[in-house]
C-alpha cells in the first residue's frame, strides 16, 4: 500500500506540538503570551535592551562602585 506522506508528516507535527502542554501562569498567562514571542526568534534583541537597562539600574544603585564588581568578575575566569 502506498503511504500518504502528507498525512504522516501532519501526524508527526501534531505529535510534536501536543507533546508539551501549553504554558499557563494563572492571571499572568495573557502577559506571558504577549512577551514570549519576542524571545522565540532572535532573543538577543530584547536581551541586549534588558542587559543595558539592568546595567543602568546597577549604576544608579551602586554608582562608581560598579568598577569593583567588574574587577571581581574579571578575576573570575
Amino acid at each position: 500500500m502506498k503511504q500518504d506522506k502528507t498525512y504522516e508528516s501532519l501526524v508527526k507535527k501534531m505529535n510534536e506540538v501536543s507533546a508539551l502542554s501549553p504554558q499557563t501562569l494563572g492571571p499572568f498567562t495573557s502577559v506571558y503570551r504577549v512577551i514570549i514571542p519576542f524571545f522565540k526568534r532572535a532573543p538577543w534583541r530584547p536581551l541586549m535592551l534588558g542587559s543595558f537597562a539592568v546595567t543602568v539600574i546597577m549604576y544608579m544603585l551602586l554608582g562608581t562602585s560598579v568598577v569593583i564588581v567588574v574587577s571581581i568578575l574579571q578575576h573570575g575566569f
Partner: protein
Amino acid sequence: MVSKSILFSRIAYNIILFVRHMIGVVQTPYETYRRLAKGEHLLQILPLLLVCIGYFGWSSLVHHGITAHPYLLTFSFGKLVAGFIITYILVIVSLVGVSRVIGGVGGFRTILLPWTYSLVPTIVWFFATSAMALLFPPPRTVSILGQAFSFLFLSFSLFLFFWKAILYYLTLRLGMKLSMGKIFIASLILFPLGALYAVALYQMGIFRIPFI
C-alpha cells in the same frame, strides 16, 4: 565493523548539525531546543566539549604565562578539565533527578544535548573575560575609560547571563517537559545546591566562577 566512508559521513553529518544548532541557539533557541530535546545524534556534542577543553588549555596559559613550567601548566589544565567533567556530570544528574522527583518526563538522553548547548554562553563569557584580562588587566579604576569599560563589560556579562537563563529554562521545559511553576520549584532546589558546590570549587582552587 563500520567502514571508513560511513564513519566519515557520520562525522560530517554531526559537524553540520553542530553548526546548524549553534546558529539556532542564537537565532531560534525555542525551535532548536525542541529538536535537541529529541536526543538524536549525540555525537554533535563532541565539538562543543573540545572547545571547552581548548578553553581550559588557554586559561592555564593566561593564568600562569607561556614561560611557566610545563608541569605546572599540565597540572592546572588537568585540574580544570577534571573539575569541568565532574561538574558537567553532576549538573546533568541533578537536573534529571530533581526534575523526575517533581514530575518531569524525560531522561539523560533528552537533557544531554539541551544542557550541553547551554554551555555556549558560558564558553563565550569565559573566553571573552580571559582575553579582556590580558588586554585590560584588572582592577578597574573610576576614570572615564574605566567606567566605560565597566559599563560595557557588565552589559555584556548580563546579556550572556540572561541568554544562559533562557537556555536553562528551555532545557527543563523541553528536555524534561516541566511547566514554568515546576521549573521554579526545581530551581529552588538546584540553585542552593549549586551555590554550595560553587563555594566548594572555589575553596579547592578549581573555579572562581563555576563553569556551568
